[in-house]
């Protein structure tokens, strides 16, 4: 451990953890709403002849997004040893994977929007709002990484440490939430 990391958790760390907690609750409410509407809706789900969601692309998106936490962890480890290049390289990789994910999501939307939209029915509303809201989070995460990469150009110190760690927490959160969405929105209709 380098002496650069001060004792105890910082206020920033706690702030981010709590923020992520309340955000996680937000997603829980959205996913809860999905199941509520599904089970109030009768046996036919998705309704109105909408096909079950295709799985290939979301699985591919999962394969892109979930492993993107690994370079982030690697970057964090590098941070503790004071290896700035690892921080940079790791985070940049995560960001690229995140952007790839968004690209895949864009192609998915382009296809699906011809079949149903936000206004088609409650299923459409749920689908686009949940996945769109998550996509927005990926976008924010990627922006945060870009911002930290710029902010750490001057070297590393305690304050910058904090920011890297906080961005990492956020990124891991966005990843984990995706698993909930994958299960709810894409897999559960097949069950």
């Amino acid at each position, binding site marked *: 451990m380098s002496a650069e990391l001060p004792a*105890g958790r910082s206020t920033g760390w706690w702030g981010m953890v709590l923020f992520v907690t309340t955000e996680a*609750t*937000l997603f829980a*409410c959205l996913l809860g709403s999905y199941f509520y509407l599904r089970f109030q809706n009768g046996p036919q789900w998705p309704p109105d002849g909408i096909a079950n969601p295709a799985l290939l692309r979301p699985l591919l998106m999962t394969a892109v997004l979930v492993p993107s936490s690994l370079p982030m962890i690697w970057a964090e480890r590098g941070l503790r040893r004071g290896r700035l290049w690892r921080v940079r390289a790791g985070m940049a990789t995560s960001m690229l994977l995140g952007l790839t994910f968004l690209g895949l999501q864009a192609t998915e939307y382009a296809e699906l929007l011809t079949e149903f939209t*936000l*206004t088609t*029915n409650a299923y459409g509303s749920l689908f686009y709002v949940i996945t769109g809201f998550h996509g927005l989070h990926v976008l924010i995460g990627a922006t945060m990484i870009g911002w930290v990469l710029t902010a750490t150009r001057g070297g590393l110190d305690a*304050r910058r440490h904090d*920011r890297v760690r906080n961005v990492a927490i956020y990124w891991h959160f966005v990843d984990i939430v995706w698993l909930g969405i994958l299960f709810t929105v894409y897999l559960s209709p097949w069950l």
Partner: protein
Amino acid sequence: MSIVDTPAAGADPTDRERLAENWTERPSLRSWLTTVDHKRIGRRYLVTAGFFFALAGISALLMRTQLANPGSDLLSPQQYNQLFTMHGTAMIFLFATPMLFGFGNFLVPLMIGSRDMAFPRLNAFGYWVFLFAGLFMWASLPFGAAPNGGWFAYVPLTSVQDSPGLHLDVYTLGLLFLGISTTAGAINFIVTALKMRAPGMSLNRMPLFVWAIVATAFMVIFALPALNVDNAMLFLDRRFGAGFFDPAAGGNVLLWQHLFWIFGHPDVYIIVMPGLGIVSAVLPAFTRRGVVGYPLVVLAIVAIAIISFGVWAHHMFAVGLPQVSYGFFSAASSIITIPSGIQIFAWLATMLLGRLVLRTPLLFVIGFIVTFVLGGVTGAMFALTAFDQQVTDSYFVVAHFHYVLVGGALFPILAGIYYWLPKITGRMYAERLGRWAFWLVFIGMHVTFFPMHLYGLFGMPRRVYTYPAGLDWDGWNLVSTVGAYVLAVGLLLVLVGVVHAVRRGRPAPPDPWGGDTLEWSTDSPPPAYNFPVIPRVHSLHPTWDARTAESTGPGATADRILSAGRRTPLTSELDGRYERPVEMPEASGKPLVLALTLLVLFTALLFAWYPVAAAAVAVVAGTVAGWLWPGRRAEART
């Protein structure tokens, strides 16, 4: 400013001078707009919430005037519906919670022996957002475009088909906007209480008021998202044709109710909990002893916070859910009375063992106990589904929630105003005026709301802008109206008392009451840096404890004086071990800019100026990036 010099010999005059120089903000418009001092922000919360309280209270007086007689046409149904919706919404969201957050802001750092909140600039931001969100909502009233769907805005009445116009867009956007402030405040409180406590203040020495604020903040963290999701979905339904709540599109109207009350029930405890905390803070000073059963009371606070998430469907006892779920929610709602009972009897025991000093704050605490227990027992009645189905949505419910809200939140708030006024303003209030205010408020309250039990049982539904004569409702409604005016006079006397104290009050000593918590160990009003020496805490009642007092005297170590820069110590989460000093941010204009940009964003969304909204989002992102940009200052001083 300080009246009496506290003997904190541990910090020599040069330290004090340097502290003053580093922390004090010179009074100017600029510092007024950019301040991050938790005391100034706390005061602002109190005044602003008081202002919204007056608006919501005046709305209530108008409603009561309309209801004084049957068939009155003082107000049109349009006006009445907007007034009662704004009354409820503002009382809950713009008065009760922010008022108590104001107390929290002012007091938490002082009570735990810190120099500021964990995130001072976030704190400033939270205040500005609260102010703007409140104005955003109230501004709609003069245009006749205020929310009119009741404070819980049930769909489909609030769908765009049944409520065209801006009314409900003001509601959804206003509450989403306000939610940013509440969430920010909650996170700030938790982190402050976890990390900023004076060394030696382990969790089991944390004042009950701080416990209450922390529990409240946790409830906010877990409850508010449900409201936000609900409002976002309603906004999307109304504006962009989504189908969440539209049965014709496969949506469901009960989804709104579930999400609303998953938030709404914890919210009523979010309101009452800090109130109970104030009671626990006021009692020791006026009974000359600590609150009985500290661990039990803490346990009760935590239990309420947790159980409050399992009772929401008791607001839906008449919608026809399955009987099993009613059995469950009914049981949970009954159980939640027990922690309240523990607290009531802990306070009673405290009063029975201590020596009562009957000053105005204690009067309000006694008024609180009487009123809150009456409101609580009707709550326990509603917990039983069969009974609730008879009285729900009648004035009986209106009676219940005013007993718990006025009794459980307003009375403690008034107790707190009198109790901490010397600390906040440095001036004493006039006791006789305070007593008059108490009796008028207390009598007015019961004359207004007790009869509502009766006409509720006599079959009068709530939210009616008028009612027919000849059903035994008329006379009692008149009584309620008279009571409301008495209550208003009492509150006016409170206001007069506050203004009088600020203008003419006797200067207050640091500790006029002999209170037990740390805020009484510093000047009234406290200096910008709160404490010349951060105390080392040795007990649950630090001010009554000689060792804690000594810790700020000669021999106080430099790591607790920290006069270089704006610094305060961080301690460990559980046992309050000293960790390291941190540098606190300086005044900044960014919080205000960010809040203003958000105001532009929400206004643009309201009027569907989407390009403006997009531009505002860009400015928001830029401001946040600049705000969090790591500065150079930190290294310069370490």
